[in-house]
């Protein structure tokens, strides 16, 4: 074992495309990472300055095994994501990964429901394409504030995906949040085998509530500020309630995918 070993990589940026307002898809040449599974993430260094200081975690958005590529889907929110969006093909990125656990149970009788809020699409797109490739049934629900903040139809078409869209301004698909859309589907009698959800914490809390009401198991992929991303610093924890006891679990190492029922949302 030595630096630049299993988990440390320098990868070339092969392509960077704007896919929606403030949202970019990066393709990295990283054959060593193509064994990654949906739910896993990389911890990426944007630049060499000490400001921003820390690496940033990003879900693996897709793995193109043939091309030896991994893809990232990045929404610009601050200095690191904005620096990434300004890179040009040929740039070298320093990343750690693949890290974290994966979405569970890919094979089941009923269709799974994949519920993505905004950039929560990143890992669920990967999961959706894997299920498609494996011939497993699923529905992909995707919500955003406005239509322009979500990738256009071509983005999904060429992957063979047909997401159900929800926008709060009603400009594309269902008018309302993706949770409203999910609720409507469950109320209308649909019974998915399970729900995989990724998005902002308040959204995840509401999805878990719905799962409880309709007795559907929910898996959530959580976000958190991370320092080490390997389980060493205990900085990224989220509260869980296990057998009535409060427990902090590391999003980076014990997750990022968790059993939604155990997450202690009220605590936050």
């Amino acid at each position, binding site marked *: *074992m*030595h*630096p*630049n*070993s*299993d*988990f*440390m990589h320098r990868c070339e940026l092969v392509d960077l495309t704007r896919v929606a307002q403030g949202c970019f898809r990066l393709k990295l040449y990283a054959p060593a990472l193509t064994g990654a599974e949906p739910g896993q993430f990389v911890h990426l*260094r944007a630049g060499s300055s*000490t*400001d*921003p*200081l*820390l*690496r940033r975690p990003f879900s693996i958005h897709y793995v193109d095994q043939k091309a030896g590529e991994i893809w990232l889907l990045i929404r610009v929110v601050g200095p690191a994501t904005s620096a990434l969006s300004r890179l040009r093909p040929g740039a070298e990125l320093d990343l*750690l990964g693949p890290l974290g656990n994966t979405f569970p149970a890919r094979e089941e009788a009923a269709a799974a429901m994949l519920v993505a809020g905004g950039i929560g699409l990143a890992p669920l797109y990967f999961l959706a394409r894997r299920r498609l490739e494996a011939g497993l049934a699923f529905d992909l629900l995707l919500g955003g504030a406005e239509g322009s903040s979500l990738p256009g139809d071509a983005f999904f078409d060429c992957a063979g995906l047909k997401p159900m869209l929800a926008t709060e301004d009603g400009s594309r698909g269902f008018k309302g949040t993706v949770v409203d859309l999910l609720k409507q589907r469950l109320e209308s009698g649909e019974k998915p085998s399970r729900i995989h959800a990724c998005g902002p914490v308040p959204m995840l809390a509401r999805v878990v509530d719905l799962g409880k009401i309709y007795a559907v198991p929910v898996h959530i992929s959580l976000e*958190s*500020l*991370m*320092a*080490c*991303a*390997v*389980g*060493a*610093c*205990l*900085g*990224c*924890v*989220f*509260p869980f309630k296990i057998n009535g006891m*409060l*427990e*902090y679990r590391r999003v980076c*190492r014990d997750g990022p995918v968790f059993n939604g029922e155990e997450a202690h949302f009220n*605590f*936050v």
Partner: protein
Amino acid sequence: MSDSCLSATIAGITMANPLVAASGCYGYGFDYRHCIDPACWGAIVVKGTTLHPRLGNPPPRLVETPSGLLNAIGLQNPGIAYFLKYIRVRLPELGCPVLVNIAGETLDEYRRLAALLNGVDEVAGLEVNISCPNVKKGGISFGCDPALVYELVCRVREAYRGPLIVKLSLEAGNIVSVAEAATRAGADALSLINTIKGMVIDVQKRRPVLGNSTGGLSGPALRPLAVRAVWEVSQAVSVPVIGMGGIMQAEDALQFILAGSAAVAIGTANFVNPAVPKEICDGLKRYLADNGFTHYRELIGLARPGS
């Protein structure tokens, strides 16, 4: 240059090099194994350990600041009993000396922790944390009063016969007096500095970002303060000083060594670059070769006037 140019002995602990993984930043030494061999460290200090298990502080526990990191972990750890039963036995796998960082809420807790670790073969020594800014009782309050530090270190010293390192905070204001007190009480070495208490406010939510309101600042932002602390303390005491605070690369480690550190610890930099211990070792060797030194020991305190 051969590896032997970096060999070190601190507080009686033989280390392959003067690089120490800082407490709280390297878990129990196992988490980075997929990135780098833990044996590349001179020593590893494990997470702050307390008498009873601690849940730690509510999240968020981290927030980034300009060139720095505020953390408010709150000494989350499974407690000394768990450590002795389950973790201790695995430590030899790491391939380098392992020290335990202990933190108590009372003088007696420190003494009991020290007694429980006395004679434990897998543990090369103790680092007594009298300076954690993230716990309400104990922690920082002990570290500011030289008389209390003297008393605390005396009790730990009586209970523990192995190498004893006391970890100081810069918040004391009188870090030199505290250092002298710890040394008089029998510390074999001093490590400094711990994080310094800071705060970031979320202006949208209009409340502190961290669940614990305040946290401890680490990283390069802190480095000039830490180098100065090492400069002052190492001239006042005769025991070795382990310097730390924002070391990211060989040049930074050299600053601490030239200021008077006999060894250097590295925390936050691991989060940015897990290969940092290896890169710093390489950089130190290159510096020795380029500048005609044969052992890093020759550099300790060399920036002081009259050296």
